[in-house]
């Protein structure tokens, strides 16, 4: 069972990398962040104040863009028929693919946050807190995304629908994540345990509920 899980996860990562998806998403993050000073003006104090919120929003956008590839490709080329025949429950298949998605897309994004943060004049000392907050929210973001991606499957070319379905689900994570990190940054990089705790709670809840919901949606889409 563990071997199958790791194999699915590995395959998802390998394909995300080979199809250039990881590179595209990371480039998107950089381009979006680079555009910010052009839109907001080169005022360093303003950029610094807005930086955590901007980074969070751009991070969410990048993730939303990537969700389209979570199950869609597998559905189109018939891989899902094969997955459904594997000696493993659909819930675990969802988890394996979500883990693959997290490792192949979220982790590279997270690694880019310090560099993107410097473009927004963020304090280097507050970067660890920001990244830790993002990391805490990441499982919730990936797994909630899996629900949306699975729900939108029955409709062909449903990238936009996935985004619309998932965006409202991301709101609580964004509120706690962004306000938490900007408070932590203004207080000089102090870790706020309450925010981290709430994000971790959301992630744990998503870890429990999302595979059930996404697997149910996948079974409906499989006909």
């Amino acid at each position, binding site marked *: 069972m563990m071997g199958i899980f790791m194999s699915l996860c590995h395959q998802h990562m*390998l394909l995300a990398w080979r199809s250039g998806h990881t590179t595209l998403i990371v480039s998107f993050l950089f381009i979006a962040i680079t555009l910010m000073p052009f839109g907001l003006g080169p005022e360093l104090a303003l950029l610094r104040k807005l930086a955590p919120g901007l980074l969070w929003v751009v991070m969410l956008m990048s993730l939303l863009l990537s969700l389209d590839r979570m199950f869609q490709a597998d559905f189109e080329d*018939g891989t899902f028929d094969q997955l459904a025949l594997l000696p493993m429950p659909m819930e675990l298949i969802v988890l394996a693919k979500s883990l693959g998605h997290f490792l192949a897309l979220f982790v590279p994004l997270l690694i880019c946050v310090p560099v993107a943060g410097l473009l927004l004049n963020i304090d280097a000392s507050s970067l660890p807190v920001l990244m830790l907050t993002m990391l805490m929210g990441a499982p919730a973001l990936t797994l909630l995304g899996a629900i949306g991606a699975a729900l939108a499957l029955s409709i062909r070319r449903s990238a936009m629908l996935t985004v619309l379905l998932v965006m409202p689900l991301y709101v609580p994570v964004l509120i706690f994540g962004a306000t938490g990190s900007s408070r932590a940054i203004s207080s000089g990089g102090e870790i706020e345990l309450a925010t981290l705790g709430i994000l971790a709670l959301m992630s744990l809840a998503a870890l429990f509920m999302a595979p059930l919901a996404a697997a149910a949606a996948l079974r409906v889409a499989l006909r």
Partner: protein
Amino acid sequence: MVQQQVFFQAVSFSDKLFLQAEDLACARGARDVFSSLNFRVNAGDALAVYGTNGSGKTSLLRMIAGFLAPRAGSLSFSGEPDEQAEPASYCHYLGHADGLKANLTVSETVDFSARNFGQLDTMIDLSVLGLAGHGDQMVGDLSAGQKRRLMLARLLIAPRPIWLLDEPLTALDTQGRDLIETLAGYHLQCGGLILAASHEALNFATHQLTLKRNHHAMVAL
């Protein structure tokens, strides 16, 4: 890992194996595809399913694989591996969509397939599939017929009693068709069971079922 080059794993499935459909009906959306379908396939039998386009051949195979719920009636299995198991764990399904990834090489595809099915120690000799020397080629660069051959690797990797083959001869050359026949022959000898939807005559078929809305014809060949 020891490379164990297998042509066909000698397994023997339970001789009590059977697949039975009772009063089976199928609907796609609001449209009824077929109804009152009854048949029984026993171990060692291959059923060729014929019918016009839209008569429900693919739907029948997908129903057996558990992808699609019957509108009415029941499907029952018996035999391997245990009575309570999901139908899915009995079946191999090869459909129109090949389930292959263009960005993997041929040998990676076989390797992932083996690991996904939990059959780590099985290595497939690509020359059996007529793909010798293509191991490092990207699947996206293969021809349609070569992709069909690569799909067959799944049948060899994990022994499962029921093979559901949708248009197995599509895009294959004469040798490819011979390969399918050979594999099917071995599978039937092992006590397996095959359902194949086709528009062409299948030499390995022992029975023939023609789907036609609600009067279906089943003949032993």
